[in-house]
């Protein structure tokens, strides 16, 4: 394997891991606060749908992003209501949210676009223009044509070339690594990676983080210290919603150009697995999701392994990331201890 191949695989791994990382961090906030969240998948899906829908209707990806965040937050609110306010079963609530998102996205999508739950492709062209026309008309009526033009400029996230990428390219190893792997992703990738140290800093260096971790370990300690358990948990669930929102928006407007039903394809569950793998720690989340991304990138790159006598079937290569995960888990990762109060609603009086 030459350097170029390695770089390409790493580049692919970065893209593949980003939605996982965002969702994994979302789960981290929620579960660190003691609220289990198996609804990551649903929230991502809802975000992907709302982001793509608004981006398609307005032609503006930033409005789409905001809509994605709102869509995901809405489901977070449902989860919070069920598992914090009404002290319901957090697993059931998560399951319900996954179903809800899977149904609502297609239902609404069909109602709005009539494309069977798909949104129009977010590439400039006839399909998109007819969708955005009413909005742009409405907008230019209010703000004048200039603003409307600007607003409708980018229906999709574009890749960013980091400064000096080309200048540094000749530097051996580091140069191509910087130019090909680190540079050239959409903004949400950088946001996702920045979220790792930020999350670490929030968790371990701020008052909010201290309380958040405490409420996931022993909510009574937080309560008797005069801090509202409910507010903290809602805050955590809301942050989880925002991060899932980013993840979903990235799927629909960054990695692809539009929404397709069920397009999260189980990534929420993989993120959940990564979270446990990471032992509920931010840097661990980075490592775990990178591992998943890398395994998938490698499997994509080598779809049939020709071993001379036998050719390993494609199905085996598809399953390889999962098999390796199990092996790594069994071999190298010890027992993961979840936050002690995780999954338990905080009940004072019975």
């Amino acid at each position, binding site marked *: 394997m030459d350097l170029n191949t390695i770089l390409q695989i790493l580049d692919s791994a970065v893209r593949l891991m980003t939605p996982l990382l965002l969702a994994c961090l979302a789960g981290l906030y929620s579960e660190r606060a003691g609220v289990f969240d198996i609804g990551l998948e649903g929230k991502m899906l809802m975000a992907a749908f709302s982001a793509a829908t608004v981006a398609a209707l307005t032609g503006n990806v930033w409005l789409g992003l905001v809509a994605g965040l709102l869509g995901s937050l809405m489901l977070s609110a449902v989860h919070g209501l069920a598992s914090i306010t009404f002290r319901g079963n957090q697993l059931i609530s998560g399951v319900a949210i996954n179903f809800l998102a899977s149904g609502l996205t297609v239902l609404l999508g069909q109602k709005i676009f009539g494309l069977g739950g798909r949104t129009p492709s977010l590439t400039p062209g006839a399909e998109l223009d007819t969708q955005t026309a009413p909005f742009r008309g409405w907008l230019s009526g209010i703000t004048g044509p200039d603003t409307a033009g600007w607003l409708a400029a980018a229906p999709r996230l574009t890749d960013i070339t980091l400064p000096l990428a080309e200048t540094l390219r000749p530097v051996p190893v580091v140069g191509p690594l910087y130019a090909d792997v680190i540079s050239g992703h959409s903004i949400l990738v950088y946001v996702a990676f920045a979220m790792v140290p930020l999350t670490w800093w929030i968790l371990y260096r701020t008052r909010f983080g201290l309380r958040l971790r405490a409420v996931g370990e*022993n909510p009574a300690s937080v309560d008797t*210290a005069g801090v509202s358990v409910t507010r903290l948990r809602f805050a955590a669930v809301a942050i989880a919603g925002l991060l899932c929102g980013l993840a979903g928006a990235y799927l629909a407007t960054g990695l692809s150009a539009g929404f397709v039903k069920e397009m999260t394809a189980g990534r929420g569950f993989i993120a959940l697995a990564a979270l446990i793998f990471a032992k509920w720690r931010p840097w661990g989340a980075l490592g775990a999701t990178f591992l998943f991304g890398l395994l998938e990138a490698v499997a994509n790159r080598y779809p049939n392994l020709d071993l001379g006598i036998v050719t390993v079937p494609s199905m085996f290569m598809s399953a390889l990331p999962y098999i390796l995960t199990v092996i790594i888990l069994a071999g190298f990762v010890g027992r993961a201890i979840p936050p002690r109060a995780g999954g338990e609603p905080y009940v*004072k009086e019975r």
Partner: protein
Amino acid sequence: MTPGAQTRGRPATAAPAAIELRGISKAFGPVQANRDIDLRVEKGTIHGIIGENGAGKSTLMSILYGFYKPDAGEILVGGRPLTIADSQTAIRAGIGMVFQHFKLVQNFTVLENIILGAEDGRLLRPSLSKARGVLGQLARDYELNVDPDETVEDLSVGHQQRVEILKALYRQADILILDEPTGVLTPAEADHLFRILEGLRAEGKTIILITHKLREIMEITDTVSVMRRGEMVASVSTAETSPEQLAELMVGRKVLLNVQKAPARPGRPILEVRGLRMVDGDGVERLRGIDLDIRAGEILGIAGVSGNGQTQLLEILGGYPEKGSAISGAIRMNGAPVPVAGAACNAAERRRQGIGHIPEDRQVEGLIMDFAAWENVAFGYHDAPEYGRGLLMDRDAIRRDAEAKIKRFDVRPPTCDLAARNFSGGNQQKIVVAREIERNPDLLLIGQPTRGVDIGAIEFIHRRIVELRDAGKAILLVSVELDEILSLSDRIAVMFDGRIMGERLPGDATTGDLGLLMAGVDAAANPPTQGLFRESR
């Protein structure tokens, strides 16, 4: 020490009371935990509250601290009415509380636990460094030393409690509520705590102390209130009352405060332990060569500060040593060797060999809190032939058995369908004791049988243990309560740092002598220079 409330207590003056509760009521669903309670605590005094398990003491204090909301009633702090809707309000009003079950975050450091909820600003660093300074000051002022960077789960319970007290002091509490603080403390620790409380009182702080130990009430409080079944039945000056009177007020009948027992008549050896060593999963040597003999018809008491290997000893004898530990040595039960490791070393096997076990922690080990009482009566013996046929269990047989046991042990309420969680601590303990004693084991291992249990129940449990001994059974009693060890044991062994420091007969032993042994000093070898403990009455 003699009670001297007159000299310490301040006469009630017209000055507003530190705390005044008027007509507090609180129901948990159908349970009326507090009913129309009035309470007045003067500033600068120590006020004791006693009452049976489940009398409503913790509930009342939790209301005062804003943890529960009362259904009715009024709270006055320093004479001014105050609606305490949450703990934040209570803290601001200068109230601090050390809960019966600590409210600490186990995997946080001491410092993090202290500042939690009382941080200065959004960032932790300044809060932590400030707290570190204040903590040092508090430690000097009150002799409350704890390593601020230690993780709480690595601290002994005594130290955890210090953290709770420091938490309250850090928040500048003027009124400090302590709910059964001595239940988990060694005598030395309890003693230390009382010195601190006296110091706090001298500063003009007000203290409310809940305890089941009348000796403590008599020793330190100025006034005392007695609760029974959710009601306040008396509030008296400590000087004007006696332990017997308090016990009667509490339980509603006369209580024998001392164990009555005939001299032991030891028979053949039941348990022989030779050179038992144990290294735990972290490589720490917990037991360093234990030799023990227990005969039929005797109670061997093991005294010692908790954390000196007693837990490990009980677990190994009980057949479930810590995972990953390495054990060597020999154990013989009724003359037959007992495996100390491998698949044959398990708790079920031990029970078959006639070893019963009342574990130290009834809620974590001894009971399944969500199981009904009758299921808990079968717990550990669910394989017994009389509890079923083949693979299935015979519910009726178990329930009949459970009902009988519950009746004999006066468990209240006497319903075997209630989940263990819904019994009070004392009654939970009675279920465990009933289960283990009634199997009539040749050897009964007992850990902390009366921790947090009210005096009525203590009396009962003690009597049953003595009865078992008199029936010719061997008993290994581990307790941190020296009083309990002294009054129940026929022989006393003192454990320190994984070794048996020495053996005494209860008649010859003084608490001072035992205290030295518990601290790792053999008094016979080095004559005592100073008492670590005050002599108890």
